[in-house]
């Protein structure tokens, strides 16, 4: 029995490390080959260069698609966060009939194949005669960002003691004043975290953008177009590395804020006091 236990407690950490390596392998290769001399991504490496990065600013299509992605990302993250606040508040604070159905539909994009969401929206938009543009991409991105916003915001709102708002009213504060002085400061980290997460999702999202963008590509759609040309691969790797860094930074900030919000809410319960 002891042997079994020792085996159990020993193979697990090894497995964990290997698994993490498996997860990170593809992601770490991007930066490595993005600073490699050779245009063909293979080992052994042929030497260090920054030329692939240097070429990026001189590509007008790249810059315009980056600009498009920024517009889409900002719009989608702001709207999905606002809609997410409504839903998360309704789910954590109230009990009403139809709550499960409503939250089920709102969270559904998380488990549906993206292609189904994309072609369905495409079908309706084309039927309605809405031309494909960045606007239609934004509509799609809002839809798929909402579940993530709601999840992040619920974890920020949960454990938010209702008596905090009551205490504020009890001390003479109006409903708006209570929102401004108590509710907002407490959930602010979760809101910022939701903005960052949905911006990241939108920035990286490909399928919906692929189907719903007209002549204005977002960054992933631009990258998709470049993948056909083997010679462009190193530039794409360089671009990918930059995107990776951007995503990583935003997510780290989002995570730190989310945890701070959750800790606040927990401490309020007095459990760890």
């Amino acid at each position, binding site marked *: 029995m002891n042997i079994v236990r020792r085996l159990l407690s020993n193979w697990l950490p090894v497995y964990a490390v290997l698994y993490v390596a498996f997860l990170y392998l593809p992601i770490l290769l991007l930066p490595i080959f993005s600073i490699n001399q050779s245009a063909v991504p293979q080992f052994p490496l042929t030497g260090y260069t920054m030329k692939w990065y240097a070429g990026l600013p001189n590509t007008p299509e790249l810059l315009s698609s980056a600009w498009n992605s920024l517009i889409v990302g900002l719009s989608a993250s702001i709207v999905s966060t606002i809609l997410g606040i409504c839903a998360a508040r309704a789910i954590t604070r109230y009990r009403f009939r139809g709550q499960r159905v409503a939250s089920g539909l709102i969270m559904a994009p998380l488990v549906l194949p993206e292609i189904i969401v994309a072609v369905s929206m495409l079908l309706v938009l084309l039927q309605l005669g809405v031309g494909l543009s960045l606007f239609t991409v934004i509509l799609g991105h809002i839809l798929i960002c909402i579940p993530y916003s709601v999840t992040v915001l619920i974890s920020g709102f949960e454990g938010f003691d209702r008596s905090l708002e*009551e205490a504020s*009213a009890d001390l*003479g*504060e*109006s409903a708006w004043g209570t929102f401004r002085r108590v509710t907002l400061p407490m959930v602010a980290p979760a809101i910022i975290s939701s903005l960052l997460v949905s911006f990241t999702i939108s920035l990286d999202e490909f399928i919906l953008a692929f189907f719903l963008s007209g002549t204005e590509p977002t960054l992933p759609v631009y990258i998709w177009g470049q993948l056909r040309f083997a010679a462009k691969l190193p530039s794409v790797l360089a671009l990918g590395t930059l995107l990776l860094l951007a995503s990583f930074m935003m997510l780290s900030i989002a995570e730190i804020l989310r945890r701070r919000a959750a800790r606040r809410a927990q401490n309020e*319960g007095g459990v760890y*006091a």
Partner: protein
Amino acid sequence: MPETPMIKIDHVTRAYGAFKALDDASLTIQKGEFFSLLGPSGCGKTTLLRMIGGFDNPTSGTIYLDGQAMNGIPANRRPTNMVFQSYAIFPHLNVAQNVAYGLKRLRLDAVEEKRRVEEALGQVSMAHLGKRGATELSGGQRQRVALARALVMRPKVLLLDEPLSALDKKLREQMQVELRKLQQAVGITFILVTHDQYEALAMSDRIAVMFSGNIAQVATPKDIYQRPVNRQVADFVGGMNFVAAEIVGEDSGTITVETTSFGRVKTEKPVQFVTKGKAATLGIRPERLRVLWDDATDKYEIAGKVVDRHYFGEITHLIVEVPGMEQPLSVSETNNFGADDIPVGAPIRLAYDPDALVALAD
């Protein structure tokens, strides 16, 4: 002209659909009183407190505060302040900012605001901790901050919703004494909700005992304990021996009953007492039965046999079977004279004061 009561609850009902959390309750609380609402969970005490604070509204009836009808006035415009059960300390503010929260609305000048915050923190012995973060406080400190935050508003009534239930026993007992002292110092009307009968008895000027949406009895702690109006109150507030009796005489203020073990007893008739045939119930507290040692005798005594014994340190509970009684008597005796050494099975004689026997409504 009598003084206006601070709180007048006038036939207040709070219904949730068919369920009545509070059923036609009426009550007055005087200025400067320390008043407790005591009862088991779900008895409506918190509902009543929240309606006084403005967090809930009566389905029917009116609550008057210092003569003013409070219906429809929201919590933020009532001269009441609440200490919440969870304390509801704002986690994003430090201690002083928490206490100053309500003062901001009054737009005092900075010096005056600071003075009042310091005064309030001083009242709860937290003067040196103003800069402390809200999440760095112990349970007792949180309670003090909640208290200071409410007191600084100088409310007409301070509402306390089970403020001590989250604290451990030692701290709770210490805070009971402090709260009582504080109330006497500031002179504000305190209304305390609690399910702990000892807390209510130790702190209050008067107590309302509540069961399932109804107020069963309103009286001083001593009367609640010694003269409970019915079996339910008697049972909730401490231990009680119930003795079956038969009514043999009755006038406007008293009844006379005959019991098998305590003989004939004449006792005050409780307010709610309704005669139902000849049967009645008497009650006597376990500590009002005294063990008679050796040859000692008393004018009023009964004899029985010890069938069980429970040791509690300073006292021992003896369970005594008395011939002719359905239920054995529970006797609480101090251990000064060796009650903890009485063997199970020993014969025993008990003395009692007939005044300690009270008639109880069902």
